Protein backbone atom coordinates (compact mmCIF):
# COMPACT_ATOMS: atom_id res chain seq x y z
CA UNK A 1 0.00 0.00 0.00
CA UNK A 2 2.84 2.29 0.95
CA UNK A 3 4.67 1.56 -2.25
CA UNK A 4 1.51 2.52 -4.15
CA UNK A 5 1.33 5.87 -2.33
CA UNK A 6 5.02 6.43 -3.02
CA UNK A 7 4.49 5.69 -6.67
CA UNK A 8 1.59 8.17 -6.85
CA UNK A 9 3.75 10.81 -5.17
CA UNK A 10 6.62 10.14 -7.51
CA UNK A 11 4.30 10.34 -10.51
CA UNK A 12 2.74 13.60 -9.23
CA UNK A 13 6.22 14.97 -8.79
CA UNK A 14 7.49 14.00 -12.21
CA UNK A 15 4.28 14.39 -14.26
CA UNK A 16 4.58 18.18 -14.87
CA UNK A 17 8.19 17.65 -15.90
CA UNK A 18 7.19 14.67 -18.02
CA UNK A 19 4.42 16.64 -19.75
CA UNK A 20 6.79 19.53 -20.38
CA UNK A 21 9.44 17.18 -21.73
CA UNK A 22 6.95 15.33 -23.94
CA UNK A 23 5.62 18.61 -25.30
CA UNK A 24 9.14 19.69 -26.10
CA UNK A 25 9.92 16.35 -27.80
CA UNK A 26 6.74 16.52 -29.93
CA UNK A 27 7.46 20.13 -30.87
CA UNK A 28 11.03 19.21 -31.74
CA UNK A 29 9.83 16.25 -33.84
CA UNK A 30 7.32 18.40 -35.72
CA UNK A 31 10.03 20.99 -36.27
CA UNK A 32 12.48 18.31 -37.39
CA UNK A 33 9.91 16.75 -39.75
CA UNK A 34 9.04 20.14 -41.18
CA UNK A 35 12.71 20.95 -41.66
CA UNK A 36 13.74 17.55 -42.96
CA UNK A 37 10.93 17.23 -45.49
CA UNK A 38 10.53 20.27 -47.65
CA UNK A 39 7.79 18.29 -49.47
CA UNK A 40 5.20 19.09 -46.78
CA UNK A 41 4.60 22.38 -48.55
CA UNK A 42 2.89 22.39 -51.91
CA UNK A 43 5.08 23.47 -54.81
CA UNK A 44 4.07 26.62 -56.61
CA UNK A 45 2.10 25.91 -59.79
CA UNK A 46 1.13 28.60 -62.26
CA UNK A 47 -1.38 27.60 -64.94
CA UNK A 48 -1.62 29.40 -68.25
CA UNK A 49 -4.69 28.36 -70.25
CA UNK A 50 -4.83 31.23 -72.73
CA UNK A 51 -6.09 30.19 -76.15
CA UNK A 52 -6.91 26.66 -75.03
CA UNK A 53 -8.76 24.59 -77.64
CA UNK A 54 -11.12 23.06 -78.57
CA UNK A 55 -12.79 23.83 -75.23
CA UNK A 56 -12.06 26.83 -73.03
CA UNK A 57 -11.28 26.19 -69.41
CA UNK A 58 -13.61 27.16 -66.57
CA UNK A 59 -11.99 29.12 -63.74
CA UNK A 60 -12.83 26.50 -61.12
CA UNK A 61 -11.40 23.74 -63.30
CA UNK A 62 -8.17 25.72 -63.67
CA UNK A 63 -7.86 26.17 -59.92
CA UNK A 64 -8.54 22.47 -59.31
CA UNK A 65 -6.03 21.37 -61.91
CA UNK A 66 -3.28 23.60 -60.52
CA UNK A 67 -3.94 22.39 -56.98
CA UNK A 68 -3.99 18.69 -57.87
CA UNK A 69 -0.92 19.02 -60.05
CA UNK A 70 0.89 20.58 -57.10
CA UNK A 71 -0.34 17.76 -54.86
CA UNK A 72 0.82 15.23 -57.45
CA UNK A 73 4.35 16.66 -57.41
CA UNK A 74 4.41 16.67 -53.64
CA UNK A 75 3.36 13.00 -53.64
CA UNK A 76 5.88 12.17 -56.35
CA UNK A 77 8.76 13.86 -54.54
CA UNK A 78 7.76 12.24 -51.25
CA UNK A 79 7.52 8.79 -52.84
CA UNK A 80 10.87 9.06 -54.64
CA UNK A 81 12.60 10.15 -51.46
CA UNK A 82 10.94 7.75 -49.03
CA UNK A 83 10.66 4.79 -51.40
CA UNK A 84 6.97 4.44 -50.53
CA UNK A 85 4.59 4.36 -53.48
CA UNK A 86 1.34 3.94 -51.52
CA UNK A 87 0.37 7.60 -51.67
CA UNK A 88 0.72 7.89 -55.44
CA UNK A 89 -2.81 6.62 -56.07
CA UNK A 90 -4.21 9.80 -54.57
CA UNK A 91 -3.06 11.89 -57.53
CA UNK A 92 -1.79 9.49 -60.23
CA UNK A 93 -3.59 6.91 -62.36
CA UNK A 94 -2.84 4.85 -65.46
CA UNK A 95 0.58 4.89 -67.07
CA UNK A 96 1.90 7.59 -64.76
CA UNK A 97 1.07 5.61 -61.63
CA UNK A 98 2.30 2.30 -63.06
CA UNK A 99 5.62 3.77 -64.16
CA UNK A 100 6.30 5.61 -60.93
CA UNK A 101 5.38 2.58 -58.84
CA UNK A 102 7.75 0.40 -60.87
CA UNK A 103 10.53 2.96 -60.63
CA UNK A 104 10.19 3.26 -56.87
CA UNK A 105 10.19 -0.51 -56.50
CA UNK A 106 13.40 -0.84 -58.55
CA UNK A 107 14.93 2.16 -56.81
CA UNK A 108 14.35 0.44 -53.47
CA UNK A 109 15.91 -2.79 -54.74
CA UNK A 110 19.00 -0.83 -55.79
CA UNK A 111 19.15 0.94 -52.41
CA UNK A 112 18.75 4.32 -54.07
CA UNK A 113 16.56 7.33 -53.52
CA UNK A 114 15.99 10.68 -55.16
CA UNK A 115 15.39 14.02 -53.49
CA UNK A 116 13.57 16.68 -55.44
CA UNK A 117 13.78 20.29 -54.35
CA UNK A 118 10.84 21.80 -56.18
CA UNK A 119 11.22 25.46 -57.16
CA UNK A 120 7.88 25.66 -58.99
CA UNK A 121 6.02 24.78 -62.17
CA UNK A 122 4.77 26.80 -65.08
CA UNK A 123 1.93 24.81 -66.65
CA UNK A 124 0.68 25.63 -70.12
CA UNK A 125 -2.58 23.95 -71.09
CA UNK A 126 -2.39 22.93 -74.76
CA UNK A 127 -5.43 20.71 -75.32
CA UNK A 128 -8.79 20.29 -73.57
CA UNK A 129 -11.19 17.85 -75.17
CA UNK A 130 -14.72 19.03 -75.91
CA UNK A 131 -16.31 16.50 -73.57
CA UNK A 132 -13.96 17.63 -70.79
CA UNK A 133 -12.51 14.13 -70.45
CA UNK A 134 -8.82 14.98 -70.94
CA UNK A 135 -6.48 17.91 -70.69
CA UNK A 136 -2.97 18.01 -72.01
CA UNK A 137 -0.43 20.37 -70.49
CA UNK A 138 3.23 21.23 -70.85
CA UNK A 139 5.07 21.80 -67.59
CA UNK A 140 8.23 23.83 -67.29
CA UNK A 141 9.53 22.86 -63.87
CA UNK A 142 12.44 24.30 -61.93
CA UNK A 143 13.82 21.31 -60.08
CA UNK A 144 16.90 20.38 -58.16
CA UNK A 145 17.20 16.61 -58.38
CA UNK A 146 19.64 14.84 -56.08
CA UNK A 147 20.33 11.15 -56.65
CA UNK A 148 21.55 9.06 -53.73
CA UNK A 149 22.87 5.54 -53.31
CA UNK A 150 22.18 4.95 -49.65
CA UNK A 151 23.46 8.12 -48.04
CA UNK A 152 26.03 8.81 -50.77
CA UNK A 153 25.13 11.70 -53.06
CA UNK A 154 25.80 10.53 -56.62
CA UNK A 155 24.58 13.46 -58.66
CA UNK A 156 22.81 16.79 -58.45
CA UNK A 157 20.97 18.40 -61.32
CA UNK A 158 19.59 21.89 -60.96
CA UNK A 159 17.86 22.77 -64.18
CA UNK A 160 14.61 23.41 -65.98
CA UNK A 161 12.77 20.21 -66.79
CA UNK A 162 9.92 19.97 -69.28
CA UNK A 163 7.11 17.48 -68.96
CA UNK A 164 4.22 16.51 -71.18
CA UNK A 165 1.28 15.93 -68.88
CA UNK A 166 -2.09 14.30 -69.48
CA UNK A 167 -4.71 14.87 -66.79
CA UNK A 168 -8.17 13.34 -66.60
CA UNK A 169 -11.01 14.11 -64.22
CA UNK A 170 -12.13 11.71 -61.50
CA UNK A 171 -15.04 11.92 -59.09
CA UNK A 172 -13.62 14.78 -57.05
CA UNK A 173 -10.26 15.67 -58.57
CA UNK A 174 -8.07 15.76 -61.64
CA UNK A 175 -5.60 12.89 -61.89
CA UNK A 176 -2.21 12.83 -63.61
CA UNK A 177 -2.59 10.02 -66.16
CA UNK A 178 0.63 10.47 -68.10
CA UNK A 179 3.81 12.33 -67.18
CA UNK A 180 6.67 12.20 -69.68
CA UNK A 181 9.79 14.28 -69.44
CA UNK A 182 10.72 15.76 -72.79
CA UNK A 183 13.50 17.94 -74.07
CA UNK A 184 12.66 21.48 -75.11
CA UNK A 185 13.50 20.44 -78.69
CA UNK A 186 10.44 18.20 -78.73
CA UNK A 187 8.12 21.19 -79.25
Amino acid at each position, binding site marked *: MRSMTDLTLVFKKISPRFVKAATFVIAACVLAIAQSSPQTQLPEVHLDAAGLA*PRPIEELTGTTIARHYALAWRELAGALESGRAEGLGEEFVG*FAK*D*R*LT*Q*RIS*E*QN*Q*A*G*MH*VRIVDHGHHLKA*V*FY*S*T*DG*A*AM*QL*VDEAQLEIQ*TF*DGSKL*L*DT*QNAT*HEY*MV*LMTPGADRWYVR*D*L*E*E*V*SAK*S*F
Partner: protein
Amino acid sequence: MKRNIRSDFALCRCLTILALLCLLPAWARAAELHVPAIVEAGQAFSIPVEGSGQATFYLVGPDHVVKRTVSLGSDLRILSSDVRAAGLYQVILCGSSCTSATFEVKAAQPAHLSFFLHPSRVPVSTPDSIDATAFVFDQYFNLVLTPVAVDFRITPASGAGLSRQVSTRHGVAWMRMDSTPHEGRVQVTAVLGKAEEERVIQQVAAEACALRMKAVTNGNMVTLETDPVRDCSGNALPDGTVVSFTKVDREGKSTVDTPIKKGIARVQFSVRGPAQISVACGVVLGNEVALNGKL
Protein backbone atom coordinates in the same frame (compact mmCIF):
# COMPACT_ATOMS: atom_id res chain seq x y z
CA MET B 1 71.90 27.66 -47.80
CA LYS B 2 68.76 27.17 -45.78
CA ARG B 3 66.98 29.73 -47.92
CA ASN B 4 67.98 27.83 -51.11
CA ILE B 5 66.62 24.56 -49.73
CA ARG B 6 63.37 26.29 -48.82
CA SER B 7 62.99 27.88 -52.26
CA ASP B 8 63.77 24.53 -53.96
CA PHE B 9 61.13 22.85 -51.83
CA ALA B 10 58.55 25.52 -52.72
CA LEU B 11 59.44 25.15 -56.41
CA CYS B 12 59.00 21.37 -56.20
CA ARG B 13 55.60 21.86 -54.55
CA CYS B 14 54.50 24.26 -57.29
CA LEU B 15 55.64 21.86 -59.99
CA THR B 16 53.80 18.97 -58.32
CA ILE B 17 50.59 21.02 -58.11
CA LEU B 18 51.00 22.05 -61.75
CA ALA B 19 51.53 18.43 -62.79
CA LEU B 20 48.44 17.39 -60.85
CA LEU B 21 46.42 20.17 -62.48
CA CYS B 22 47.59 18.96 -65.88
CA LEU B 23 46.72 15.38 -65.06
CA LEU B 24 43.26 16.18 -63.66
CA PRO B 25 41.56 16.97 -67.01
CA ALA B 26 43.10 13.84 -68.50
CA TRP B 27 41.62 11.77 -65.68
CA ALA B 28 38.25 13.55 -66.00
CA ARG B 29 38.22 12.86 -69.72
CA ALA B 30 38.82 9.23 -68.98
CA ALA B 31 35.72 9.17 -66.81
CA GLU B 32 33.54 11.05 -69.30
CA LEU B 33 30.38 9.36 -70.52
CA HIS B 34 29.55 9.67 -74.20
CA VAL B 35 25.85 8.95 -74.41
CA PRO B 36 23.67 9.48 -77.48
CA ALA B 37 21.44 12.55 -77.19
CA ILE B 38 18.30 10.75 -78.37
CA VAL B 39 17.39 7.08 -78.44
CA GLU B 40 14.22 5.44 -79.74
CA ALA B 41 12.21 3.58 -77.13
CA GLY B 42 13.06 -0.11 -76.97
CA GLN B 43 16.31 0.22 -78.94
CA ALA B 44 19.38 -1.33 -77.33
CA PHE B 45 22.64 0.61 -77.56
CA SER B 46 26.11 0.82 -76.03
CA ILE B 47 27.95 3.50 -74.11
CA PRO B 48 31.73 3.39 -74.54
CA VAL B 49 33.58 3.79 -71.25
CA GLU B 50 37.27 4.55 -71.05
CA GLY B 51 39.61 3.69 -68.22
CA SER B 52 40.37 0.53 -66.34
CA GLY B 53 39.17 -1.19 -63.20
CA GLN B 54 35.69 -1.51 -61.85
CA ALA B 55 32.98 1.09 -61.36
CA THR B 56 29.33 1.22 -60.37
CA PHE B 57 26.94 2.05 -63.16
CA TYR B 58 23.51 3.56 -62.52
CA LEU B 59 20.70 4.12 -65.01
CA VAL B 60 17.70 6.07 -63.72
CA GLY B 61 14.69 6.31 -66.03
CA PRO B 62 11.00 7.11 -65.71
CA ASP B 63 10.05 3.53 -64.85
CA HIS B 64 13.34 1.74 -64.49
CA VAL B 65 16.40 1.84 -62.27
CA VAL B 66 19.56 -0.17 -62.94
CA LYS B 67 22.58 -0.50 -60.68
CA ARG B 68 25.44 -2.82 -61.57
CA THR B 69 29.19 -3.17 -61.31
CA VAL B 70 30.94 -2.72 -64.65
CA SER B 71 34.45 -3.06 -65.95
CA LEU B 72 35.86 0.16 -67.36
CA GLY B 73 37.42 0.03 -70.79
CA SER B 74 34.54 -1.91 -72.32
CA ASP B 75 31.16 -0.84 -73.69
CA LEU B 76 28.18 -0.56 -71.39
CA ARG B 77 25.25 -2.42 -72.91
CA ILE B 78 21.88 -0.76 -72.47
CA LEU B 79 19.23 -3.37 -73.15
CA SER B 80 16.05 -2.65 -75.07
CA SER B 81 14.08 -3.44 -71.89
CA ASP B 82 16.01 -0.70 -70.07
CA VAL B 83 14.69 2.08 -72.28
CA ARG B 84 11.04 1.32 -72.99
CA ALA B 85 9.51 4.38 -71.35
CA ALA B 86 9.94 7.71 -73.09
CA GLY B 87 11.58 10.47 -71.10
CA LEU B 88 14.93 11.66 -69.85
CA TYR B 89 17.33 9.07 -68.47
CA GLN B 90 20.25 9.71 -66.18
CA VAL B 91 23.44 7.69 -66.46
CA ILE B 92 25.86 7.82 -63.51
CA LEU B 93 29.23 6.09 -63.37
CA CYS B 94 31.02 6.00 -60.04
CA GLY B 95 34.61 4.93 -59.60
CA SER B 96 36.80 7.00 -57.33
CA SER B 97 34.34 9.78 -58.14
CA CYS B 98 31.08 10.02 -60.04
CA THR B 99 30.33 11.34 -63.50
CA SER B 100 26.90 11.64 -65.06
CA ALA B 101 25.12 12.27 -68.36
CA THR B 102 21.55 12.34 -69.60
CA PHE B 103 19.90 11.14 -72.77
CA GLU B 104 16.37 11.28 -74.06
CA VAL B 105 14.26 8.32 -75.07
CA LYS B 106 11.66 9.21 -77.65
CA ALA B 107 8.58 7.20 -78.49
CA ALA B 108 8.94 4.52 -81.12
CA GLN B 109 6.71 4.20 -84.18
CA PRO B 110 2.94 4.67 -83.64
CA ALA B 111 1.29 1.41 -82.68
CA HIS B 112 -1.79 2.23 -80.61
CA LEU B 113 -4.59 4.74 -80.81
CA SER B 114 -6.68 5.85 -77.91
CA PHE B 115 -9.83 7.13 -79.55
CA PHE B 116 -12.77 9.08 -78.12
CA LEU B 117 -15.93 9.96 -80.02
CA HIS B 118 -18.31 12.40 -78.41
CA PRO B 119 -21.29 12.40 -77.89
CA SER B 120 -22.78 8.92 -78.14
CA ARG B 121 -26.11 10.21 -79.53
CA VAL B 122 -26.52 13.26 -81.70
CA PRO B 123 -29.41 14.86 -83.61
CA VAL B 124 -29.14 14.77 -87.42
CA SER B 125 -27.92 17.75 -89.45
CA THR B 126 -26.40 19.57 -86.47
CA PRO B 127 -23.30 21.63 -87.23
CA ASP B 128 -20.08 20.87 -85.30
CA SER B 129 -21.86 18.34 -83.14
CA ILE B 130 -19.45 15.39 -83.35
CA ASP B 131 -15.95 15.47 -81.84
CA ALA B 132 -13.33 12.85 -82.51
CA THR B 133 -10.07 12.81 -80.52
CA ALA B 134 -7.23 10.34 -81.00
CA PHE B 135 -4.11 10.02 -78.83
CA VAL B 136 -1.23 8.29 -80.58
CA PHE B 137 0.96 5.88 -78.62
CA ASP B 138 3.84 3.60 -79.53
CA GLN B 139 4.02 -0.09 -78.64
CA TYR B 140 5.21 0.79 -75.11
CA PHE B 141 2.36 3.28 -74.65
CA ASN B 142 4.54 6.35 -74.90
CA LEU B 143 2.82 9.35 -76.42
CA VAL B 144 4.18 9.88 -79.94
CA LEU B 145 5.08 13.58 -80.02
CA THR B 146 6.38 13.63 -83.59
CA PRO B 147 3.51 14.86 -85.82
CA VAL B 148 1.76 12.06 -87.70
CA ALA B 149 -1.43 12.03 -89.77
CA VAL B 150 -4.46 10.25 -88.36
CA ASP B 151 -7.16 9.28 -90.83
CA PHE B 152 -10.72 9.60 -89.53
CA ARG B 153 -13.06 7.48 -91.70
CA ILE B 154 -16.75 8.24 -91.32
CA THR B 155 -19.27 5.65 -92.51
CA PRO B 156 -22.95 6.67 -92.13
CA ALA B 157 -25.79 4.14 -92.15
CA SER B 158 -26.85 5.42 -95.55
CA GLY B 159 -25.10 7.58 -98.09
CA ALA B 160 -21.47 7.91 -99.01
CA GLY B 161 -18.72 7.73 -96.44
CA LEU B 162 -16.01 10.31 -96.10
CA SER B 163 -12.51 10.55 -94.75
CA ARG B 164 -10.55 13.34 -93.11
CA GLN B 165 -6.84 13.43 -92.32
CA VAL B 166 -5.70 15.33 -89.27
CA SER B 167 -2.11 15.83 -88.16
CA THR B 168 -1.27 15.29 -84.51
CA ARG B 169 0.00 18.05 -82.28
CA HIS B 170 1.70 16.94 -79.06
CA GLY B 171 0.47 13.44 -79.84
CA VAL B 172 -3.20 14.37 -80.21
CA ALA B 173 -5.34 14.61 -83.35
CA TRP B 174 -8.88 15.92 -83.10
CA MET B 175 -11.58 17.01 -85.45
CA ARG B 176 -15.11 18.31 -85.28
CA MET B 177 -17.79 17.55 -87.86
CA ASP B 178 -21.48 18.01 -88.61
CA SER B 179 -23.89 15.13 -88.14
CA THR B 180 -25.30 13.78 -91.42
CA PRO B 181 -28.99 14.24 -92.44
CA HIS B 182 -30.12 10.66 -91.84
CA GLU B 183 -30.73 8.94 -88.54
CA GLY B 184 -29.03 5.67 -87.65
CA ARG B 185 -25.63 4.45 -86.71
CA VAL B 186 -22.52 6.28 -87.88
CA GLN B 187 -19.24 4.48 -87.62
CA VAL B 188 -16.07 6.52 -87.17
CA THR B 189 -12.73 4.77 -87.46
CA ALA B 190 -9.41 6.34 -86.56
CA VAL B 191 -6.62 4.83 -88.65
CA LEU B 192 -2.88 5.22 -88.39
CA GLY B 193 -0.80 2.63 -90.16
CA LYS B 194 -1.89 -0.74 -88.83
CA ALA B 195 -3.56 0.78 -85.80
CA GLU B 196 -7.33 1.11 -86.12
CA GLU B 197 -9.90 2.05 -83.54
CA GLU B 198 -13.61 2.05 -84.29
CA ARG B 199 -16.39 3.88 -82.45
CA VAL B 200 -20.09 4.18 -83.21
CA ILE B 201 -22.36 7.15 -82.72
CA GLN B 202 -26.15 7.04 -82.97
CA GLN B 203 -27.72 9.81 -84.99
CA VAL B 204 -31.28 10.50 -83.94
CA ALA B 205 -34.01 12.64 -85.48
CA ALA B 206 -33.70 16.34 -84.79
CA GLU B 207 -36.57 18.56 -83.62
CA ALA B 208 -40.00 17.92 -85.07
CA CYS B 209 -40.83 19.77 -88.26
CA ALA B 210 -44.28 20.79 -89.65
CA LEU B 211 -46.07 19.29 -86.66
CA ARG B 212 -49.75 18.81 -87.45
CA MET B 213 -52.75 17.32 -85.66
CA LYS B 214 -56.36 16.60 -86.56
CA ALA B 215 -59.39 16.52 -84.26
CA VAL B 216 -62.28 14.06 -84.31
CA THR B 217 -65.23 15.02 -82.09
CA ASN B 218 -67.67 12.58 -80.57
CA GLY B 219 -70.24 14.37 -78.38
CA ASN B 220 -68.34 16.11 -75.58
CA MET B 221 -65.22 14.17 -76.35
CA VAL B 222 -62.58 15.13 -78.86
CA THR B 223 -59.77 12.85 -80.01
CA LEU B 224 -56.63 14.61 -81.18
CA GLU B 225 -54.05 12.76 -83.24
CA THR B 226 -50.88 14.02 -84.87
CA ASP B 227 -49.63 13.10 -88.30
CA PRO B 228 -46.48 10.95 -88.16
CA VAL B 229 -44.01 13.17 -86.31
CA ARG B 230 -40.86 13.73 -88.34
CA ASP B 231 -37.91 16.12 -88.39
CA CYS B 232 -37.13 18.42 -91.34
CA SER B 233 -35.02 15.68 -92.99
CA GLY B 234 -37.93 13.25 -92.86
CA ASN B 235 -36.60 11.12 -89.99
CA ALA B 236 -39.30 9.82 -87.66
CA LEU B 237 -38.98 11.05 -84.10
CA PRO B 238 -38.40 8.08 -81.78
CA ASP B 239 -41.27 6.58 -79.81
CA GLY B 240 -41.37 8.01 -76.35
CA THR B 241 -40.73 11.58 -77.46
CA VAL B 242 -43.21 13.73 -75.58
CA VAL B 243 -45.86 15.75 -77.43
CA SER B 244 -47.90 18.34 -75.50
CA PHE B 245 -51.55 19.14 -76.26
CA THR B 246 -52.90 22.30 -74.65
CA LYS B 247 -56.61 23.07 -74.41
CA VAL B 248 -57.98 26.49 -73.54
CA ASP B 249 -61.72 26.78 -72.88
CA ARG B 250 -64.05 28.56 -70.45
CA GLU B 251 -62.86 26.28 -67.65
CA GLY B 252 -59.30 27.43 -68.17
CA LYS B 253 -56.12 25.93 -69.55
CA SER B 254 -55.10 22.30 -69.33
CA THR B 255 -52.11 20.49 -70.83
CA VAL B 256 -51.65 16.79 -71.48
CA ASP B 257 -48.19 15.38 -72.26
CA THR B 258 -48.24 12.13 -74.19
CA PRO B 259 -45.43 10.07 -75.73
CA ILE B 260 -45.26 9.23 -79.40
CA LYS B 261 -46.33 5.64 -80.06
CA LYS B 262 -45.70 4.06 -83.44
CA GLY B 263 -44.79 7.46 -84.86
CA ILE B 264 -47.89 9.39 -83.76
CA ALA B 265 -49.22 11.00 -80.59
CA ARG B 266 -52.89 10.71 -79.57
CA VAL B 267 -54.97 12.19 -76.75
CA GLN B 268 -58.65 12.60 -75.73
CA PHE B 269 -60.18 15.70 -74.15
CA SER B 270 -63.68 16.46 -72.90
CA VAL B 271 -64.79 19.80 -74.29
CA ARG B 272 -67.66 22.03 -73.16
CA GLY B 273 -68.37 25.03 -75.29
CA PRO B 274 -65.84 26.71 -77.53
CA ALA B 275 -62.23 25.62 -77.13
CA GLN B 276 -58.86 26.17 -78.74
CA ILE B 277 -56.31 23.34 -78.78
CA SER B 278 -52.65 23.59 -79.72
CA VAL B 279 -49.90 21.01 -80.10
CA ALA B 280 -46.15 21.27 -79.42
CA CYS B 281 -43.15 18.98 -79.40
CA GLY B 282 -40.04 20.31 -77.68
CA VAL B 283 -39.57 23.85 -78.90
CA VAL B 284 -41.66 23.30 -82.02
CA LEU B 285 -45.26 24.50 -82.16
CA GLY B 286 -47.76 22.77 -84.41
CA ASN B 287 -51.13 23.85 -85.74
CA GLU B 288 -54.10 25.02 -83.64
CA VAL B 289 -57.62 23.61 -83.76
CA ALA B 290 -60.77 25.58 -82.79
CA LEU B 291 -63.80 23.63 -81.62
CA ASN B 292 -67.47 24.74 -81.20
CA GLY B 293 -66.80 28.18 -82.54
CA LYS B 294 -64.48 30.88 -81.25
CA LEU B 295 -63.74 31.48 -77.58
